[in-house]
């Protein structure tokens, strides 16, 4: 066997033995290469190229488990749904999520975001109210910026009350691309 075949066998063995704590792959999209990572519970991380895939993998190794392997199969369903989403054929994602990288108020914000429908937006203030802390507008900004699973959990649908886009983990350009695509 060559080293690629041995790697594939290692991934299969690890999965069978319950040692594949974090599986990952990348997908090419209109907003650049996305890193997708999943635990056995669900999708745990989506990372933009601009913020560094290596940094995201190191974060996973430290915060979840160092047993991290390139293992595309576990990510096949979400990769397929992302393809459909970027082709305009899908408006919601239906994959299990593992939100362990978000806690407290940040988790409350992340859990509210899927309620913002495709093609719609909410302001940071509206999200603060929905998450139970009307005054925590800035904290909503932080929670969105640190969303562990952007695109799939749509933090890009949160904008400023003056209608401007505000910050985005994947850069303002990516946020504009996503909102323009959803508005079309």
């Amino acid at each position, binding site marked *: *066997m*060559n*080293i690629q075949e*041995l*790697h594939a*066998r*290692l991934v299969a*063995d*690890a999965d069978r*033995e319950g*040692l594949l704590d*974090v599986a*990952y792959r990348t997908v090419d999209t209109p907003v650049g290469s996305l890193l997708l990572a999943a635990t056995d519970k669900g999708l745990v991380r989506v990372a933009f190229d601009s913020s560094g895939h290596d940094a995201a*993998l*190191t974060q*996973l*190794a*430290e915060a979840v*488990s*160092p*047993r*991290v*392997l*390139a293992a595309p199969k576990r990510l096949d369903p979400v990769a397929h749904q992302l393809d459909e989403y970027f082709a305009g054929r899908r408006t919601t994602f239906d994959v299990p999520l593992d939100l362990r990288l978000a806690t407290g108020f940040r988790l409350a914000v992340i859990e509210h975001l899927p309620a913002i429908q495709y093609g719609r937006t909410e302001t940071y203030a509206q999200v603060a109210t929905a998450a139970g802390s009307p005054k925590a507008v800035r904290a909503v900004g932080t929670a969105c910026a640190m969303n562990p699973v952007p695109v799939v959990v749509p933090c890009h649908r949160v904008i400023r009350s003056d209608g401007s886009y505000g910050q985005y983990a994947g850069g303002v350009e990516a946020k504009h691309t996503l909102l323009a695509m959803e508005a079309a």
Partner: protein
Amino acid sequence: MAISRFVGTRRLRGVRPFEEIVVEYGPMVLRVCRAVLGPVDADDAWSETFLSALRAYPDLPADANVEAWLVTIAHRKALDGWRAGKRRPLAVAEVPERATADEWRGDVWDAVAELPHKQRLAVAYHHLAGLSYREIAAITGGTEAAARRAAADGMKRLRATVEEKV
């Protein structure tokens, strides 16, 4: 196994995803397995080594000597095989005809296979894995000086064999 033994002098860095370990050291461990066990059993030994390493990896200190740790595991996997009679120390007749494209130079590997067991281990662990003689002695038993001598004798014999064939 006492993982603390592998705390070395390597520079401290953050937690590395296991994938990086496979990519960085996988080819080296495969060469070592091939040299020690031959190409037939090398695949299984490599797979068992990395599965075992993956299991233990969360407990490995960040500054551990990863090469020595992996070679120690590979050595034990080979030893288990020999003890169980599952794998014999390599016989030349088992080396199959392999495409040279797979970095497999038949003549050199044949010559490695013909080395006495201790010399083959010392050559593989020092020249393929880059371990120090002290680390090799800790893995195979015996003294640092004996490991150094075995590697030197092995290399001498290898050169003679390969030159003879050329």
